[in-house]
């Protein structure tokens, strides 16, 4: 089984069986050999469902600690400062069981003193033979277990080390996460940047990275901020989301991607238990993949309308762009921004001619070659599972 990206173009998720057939991540649907295509069920992305399930999982996490930071649609950092360290592993077990029972979603739990190490612990909880049955892995800064894991891990697997950086590190003789941990932080800072230096400190067990600093997962773009002071006003939230959506649009265009789903979230301050608590999020699926900030802003405002509730003092709001794909994969149309002045002039003249003909000979004489609505122009999601948890008409049926 595989899941397709927006517009059913490429495979973005594969079951183990699909991986075993040798299908690579990102394979275009139409390039799948017929012999494989016959054996496989391909499903369209269902962002409404993912977003809702993601919200539920986060709500369960929030029962275990007020300090929940959403990193991506399926990963969160949960702070356990002040909890008795001896109880953490058991808490992790209970958390995993509770998430599974309440939502059906299996999660892995990694505990560590820093975010970089936590990511590694989580990875070990998922894959490492010593931990994956339990699904929970606790790493302390200097334990033999941590050392063993770091020694086996290629440096490119460390959170925040991109492929190119990893290659340069390898040239310097740093192949494993352990070797990076043992490197001189100042030396690393000189050759790379303060970001990589902080990673060295984190590998050593010293927190040095805030979630805002870190590079975003490639599959998402998130822009969020806590408010300086708590606000009840939907106007403040609208303004904040407008800015966040615009900023997200900039990042999107900078990396030459388009998005087809916008997630909006709001929350109160979890560290003010004297105040009523509320957190919610919603995913707004776009009609077609876009990088236009106006559409992103519009979606964000629509989303806010769904989740804003009166009577709460909001602390944070954010926008996350999901289901990114390269802009080049999507057909260019006449309405796209032209590259050169000559093109711009040509396009204008063409549009003017089209308009003139439509005026003189009747509306619709010349259409721009865009397929009808509901056809290729709107997001193709032919094989999407129902939106079981967000649409009355798509509820699961039970006999």
């Amino acid at each position, binding site marked *: 089984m595989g899941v397709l990206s927006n517009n059913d173009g490429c495979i973005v998720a594969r079951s183990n069986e699909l991986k075993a057939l040798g299908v690579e991540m990102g394979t275009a649907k139409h390039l799948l050999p017929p012999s494989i295509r016959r054996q496989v069920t391909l499903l369209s992305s269902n962002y409404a469902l993912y977003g809702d399930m993601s919200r*539920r999982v986060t709500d369960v996490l929030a029962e275990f600690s007020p300090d929940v930071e959403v990193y991506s649609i399926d990963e969160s950092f949960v702070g356990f400062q002040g909890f008795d360290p001896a109880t953490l592993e058991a808490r992790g077990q209970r958390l995993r069981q509770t998430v599974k029972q309440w939502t059906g979603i299996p999660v892995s739990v990694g505990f560590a003193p820093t975010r970089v190490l936590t990511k590694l612990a989580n990875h070990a909880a998922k894959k490492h033979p010593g931990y994956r049955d339990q699904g929970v892995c606790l790493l302390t800064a200097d334990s033999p277990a941590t050392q063993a894991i770091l020694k086996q891990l290629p440096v490119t697997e460390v959170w925040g080390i991109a492929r190119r950086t990893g290659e340069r590190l390898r040239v310097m003789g740093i192949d494993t996460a352990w070797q990076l941990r043992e490197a001189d932080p100042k030396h690393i800072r000189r050759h790379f940047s303060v970001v990589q230096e902080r990673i060295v400190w984190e590998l050593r067990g010293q927190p040095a990275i805030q979630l805002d600093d870190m590079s975003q997962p490639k599959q998402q773009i998130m822009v969020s901020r806590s408010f300086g002071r708590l606000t009840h006003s939907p106007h403040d939230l609208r303004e904040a989301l407008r800015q966040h959506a615009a900023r997200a649009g900039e990042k999107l265009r900078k990396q030459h991607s388009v998005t087809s789903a916008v997630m909006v979230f709001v929350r109160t301050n979890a560290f003010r238990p004297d105040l009523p608590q509320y957190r919610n999020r919603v995913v707004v699926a776009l009609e077609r993949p876009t990088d236009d900030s106006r559409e992103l802003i519009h979606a964000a405002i629509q989303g806010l309308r769904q989740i804003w509730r009166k009577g709460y*003092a909001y602390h944070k709001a954010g926008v996350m762009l999901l289901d990114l794909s390269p802009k080049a994969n999507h057909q260019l149309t006449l309405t796209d921004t032209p590259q050169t002045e000559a093109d711009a002039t040509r396009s204008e003249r063409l549009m003017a001619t089209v308009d003139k003909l439509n005026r003189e000979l009747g509306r619709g004489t010349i259409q721009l070659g865009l397929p009808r609505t509901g056809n290729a122009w709107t997001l193709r999601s032919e094989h999407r599972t129902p939106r079981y*948890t967000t649409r009355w008409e798509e509820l*699961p*049926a039970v006999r």
Partner: protein
Amino acid sequence: MTNTASWVCSAALNPIPQPLPMFASAVRAGFPSPADDYIDAEMDLHGYVVKRPAATFFARSEGDSMIGDGIHHGDLLVVDRSLEPLPGRVIVVALDGELTVKRLERVGQRTYLTASNPAYQPIPLEGREAHVWGVVTHVLHSLPGATP
């Protein structure tokens, strides 16, 4: 979850001399206050029915196998995955890949899924692939004429 009835009782038992806020001014001040519980606002049916939002799902019932429990074809079921599927409870279970709503029963060592309609036979669970999906807590039946 605030239970209006219990607040009314405790107010009577512990009369604290406190100026009751005007509904209008409490909202305008923009600050939530303990006095909010004395305010009669719109009643929240969703909150009444959904005790654990993260674990609560809705489903649509088909057929009349559970008519004895007031579940008709087309009714809305509220399913809570956080509750324990104890014998005697109406549960949603995935049986051989299909979702079904039945009562969980234990007879000695054997477990069955029973219908509340005599036309349906009990289903023994021995040797079958069954995954409990959640416990049905409420059923919403809309009467004819409900939609304008």
